[in-house]
């Protein structure tokens, strides 16, 4: 506890108004990063004693030190660290892709497909129903037409569908989990991410055509999806092929090579609108399944995974919009509970139809609560496309993500302990 307090007090002094005249606030990124690395890790380690996951500690530390509470990390620090955040996400996605071993997942493909299908359909329908029946409680929908309510709810449902693969893999790595539940949760989270991008494009186009009739139903989005998803897959295959060849023939400076892969994936996706998560998932998947050295690559990344997770999750904590949460906390809470109920139903039906054991039907839903990344990106697109209620929508989604991102890892960790898969990884 003393080191935690000491580093906290030091940062308090460094950021105090007495020293401010000597400081260069434009150069605060590195000090913020160094502080959050140590502070979040120590904070997470203390929370771990209360049986909470490390990454919940990282996220909470990020919130505590972020722009809404102590302001040790300023909004411009968060913005400046976007590139490092992107690098961390790419590395996490590489690991997640590498965990998708075909041999292991072969027997579970039916269950994963069913769970993804039922979760998607039930969550979408459920949120449309919530929109219709609860619109009198949503101030900005009260005066909206039924079609506008439909558009709003469909988009909210779409954004509620995905589960964060980054959080999932972080908890799996932390708990050293392995087994049926682990595969089902990770497999579904990854597969759902692909589908959600496609479904979002459809939902956005449908919503635009019903909420703004002058727009009409625009099929050009199909081309865009093809370009975004197809392009990401192609780049992922290219990079994955490159990794295989590199590991086979060059073998030298592997860490630098992997960092470069992460950097270039981020750059390419950032500049041309592709999905870094998809690119690295595919690349990791390819390296793991089609190369003898894939395991070495993944274990090399996993070895230094803790600093990567600290940076990624502490920054995601610092970026959580507490202002939005304060504004819409009650509605957000209702959405979180409703999403949980729908996730349970979707998982239950998916597992039942594929005759999974009773435990999966009853408990696997707890692995699908976390939500971030993809949903956040989509919320920004919605905000741009629907100026009348885009702001309120964004605030609500941010608040929902904030709650889910805090409780999601705890649910998944508890699940993996409950089904005794934690600590099973050799």
């Amino acid at each position, binding site marked *: 506890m003393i080191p935690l307090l000491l580093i906290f007090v030091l940062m308090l002094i460094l950021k105090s108004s007495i020293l401010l005249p000597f400081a260069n606030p434009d150069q605060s990124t590195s000090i913020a990063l160094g502080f959050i690395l140590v502070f979040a890790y120590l904070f997470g380690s203390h929370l771990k004693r209360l049986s909470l996951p490390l990454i919940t500690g990282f996220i909470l530390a990020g919130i505590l030190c972020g722009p809404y509470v102590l302001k040790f990390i300023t909004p411009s620090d968060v913005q400046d660290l976007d590139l490092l955040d992107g690098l961390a996400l790419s590395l996490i996605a590489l690991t997640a892709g590498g965990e998708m071993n075909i041999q292991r997942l072969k027997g579970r493909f039916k269950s994963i497909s069913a769970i993804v299908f039922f979760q998607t359909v039930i969550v979408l329908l459920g949120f449309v129903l919530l929109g219709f029946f609860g619109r009198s409680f949503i101030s900005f929908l009260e005066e909206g037409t039924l079609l506008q309510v439909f558009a709003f709810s469909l988009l909210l449902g779409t954004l509620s569908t995905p589960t964060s693969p980054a959080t999932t893999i972080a908890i799996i790595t932390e708990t050293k989990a392995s087994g049926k539940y682990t595969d089902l949760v990770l497999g579904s989270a990854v597969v759902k991410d692909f589908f959600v991008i496609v479904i979002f494009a459809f939902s956005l186009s449908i919503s635009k055509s019903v909420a703004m009739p002058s727009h009409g139903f625009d099929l050009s989005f199909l081309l865009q999806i093809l370009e975004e998803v197809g392009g990401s897959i192609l780049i992922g295959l290219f990079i994955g092929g490159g990794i295989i060849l590199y590991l086979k023939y060059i073998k030298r400076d592997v860490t630098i090579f992997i960092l470069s892969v992460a950097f270039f994936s981020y750059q390419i996706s950032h500049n041309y609108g592709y999905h870094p998560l998809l690119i690295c998932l595919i690349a990791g998947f390819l390296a793991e399944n089609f190369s003898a050295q894939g395991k070495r690559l993944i274990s090399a990344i996993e070895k230094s*995974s803790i600093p990567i997770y600290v940076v990624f999750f502490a920054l995601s904590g610092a970026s959580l919009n507490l202002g939005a949460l304060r504004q819409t906390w009650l509605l957000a809470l209702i959405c979180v509970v409703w999403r949980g109920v729908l996730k349970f139903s979707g998982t239950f039906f998916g597992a039942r139809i594929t005759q999974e054991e009773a435990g999966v039907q009853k408990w696997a839903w707890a692995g699908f609560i976390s939500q971030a990344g993809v949903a956040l990106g989509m919320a920004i697109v919605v905000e741009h496309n629907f100026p009348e209620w885009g702001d309120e929508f964004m605030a609500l989604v941010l608040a929902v993500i904030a709650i889910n991102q805090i409780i999601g890892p705890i649910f998944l960790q508890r699940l993996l302990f409950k089904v005794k898969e934690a600590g099973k990884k050799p």
Partner: protein
Amino acid sequence: MRAIYAFGLLILIAFLGARFITKRKVLSPINYFFSAGFIYIFLGLSLGRSGFNILSPSVLTGLTPLISLGLGWVGFLFGFQLEAKYLRRFPRKYKNLSFLQFLFVFLLGGLIFSLALKQFFPSERTFLLYGIGLAFGLLLSVNSPTLLSMASSAIPKRGNYHYLARFLVSVSGFWGIFGLAIFSSFWHFPIFESKIFLRGSLLLMFSSGFPILIGYLFHVLTKKKTSEEQMLVYLLGLVFFVSGASFYFNLLPLYMSMVLGITFSNLTRIHEKLYPLLLSTEKPLYITFLILVGALWEVYFDYRLALLVGLMILLRFMAYILPMPLFKVILDFPLNLPSRFGLSFLSSGGIGLAFAVSLKLAFPLPLTDLFLSVALFGILITELVSPWGVRMSIFKLDKEEKK
């Protein structure tokens, strides 16, 4: 498309490195250039503003923490080897020699560079020119231990000259970096400002006191049983924190991290446990740092730059070769110190680069841009000849001594 070219370039360099290095001797210039990672500066150069512009100024802003980490890392590693227990093994005269050598190189280099800069840039403020001149003197006084460490395995008969040279290159950096810290603490304020002494001393005290405190914290954190991953988080986090604090207060990251390294090294008892971790992390961080140094480099050519580079190379030779016999007399040194022993000190390697980048980032001025350019050209050229220098000096002197 540019990103793909750059990616291809990176693979090509790694591929060439893998092919070349295994087939060449340790002390061939090309081999040293590859294995010490200097080739990555050119990769960075091609990725930066002077090349594909992938590491554009805005991207570099996003990567500032990595530059800060790189500088901090170089400083920490350098400080970590300065363990009192190890240094005490060497005779007092070795320490006196290191200080005398530092003083001579610094004063000669500082004086000549100050005069040259005054001549080349008559319209610039004298305060700035003399400052940069002294910084050149300090840069010349810094030596890199990397070349001698790599050469150790290739030296057939290691004798007193080898050990003396290793001691000198390890310690000379300390004097140079400490000198730069003193100089930059006071150089913050133009001469006509009031209370320079007080304010400069306060900055120096903060630059030294803060990393000592963090070094102690690091020791406390690692005193109990610590896993490798915990150690990695603490190490990265605290090095970031210290070099970040130096950026935040416009101080020298290299110096503050060196003090962190010295403090921790002299408090901890887990050297054995930490070395493998440092070794496994060092290379990727160092290479990343070199790539970013290359990207920061704005290459331009003019006659003044060429002359200053020439002067730097000339002084690198002269300031180390000329005074050796004199040192022998002044210190009554137990070992003969022929002029050619000075050829062992041509390399300033990564520590020299970090030194130059540190100054440029702490004082972003047109003159520090010039300083960085001259330093990069000068260091890269002397690095190419430094393996030859080691062969001509230590190899032969140790052989002769054994005979």
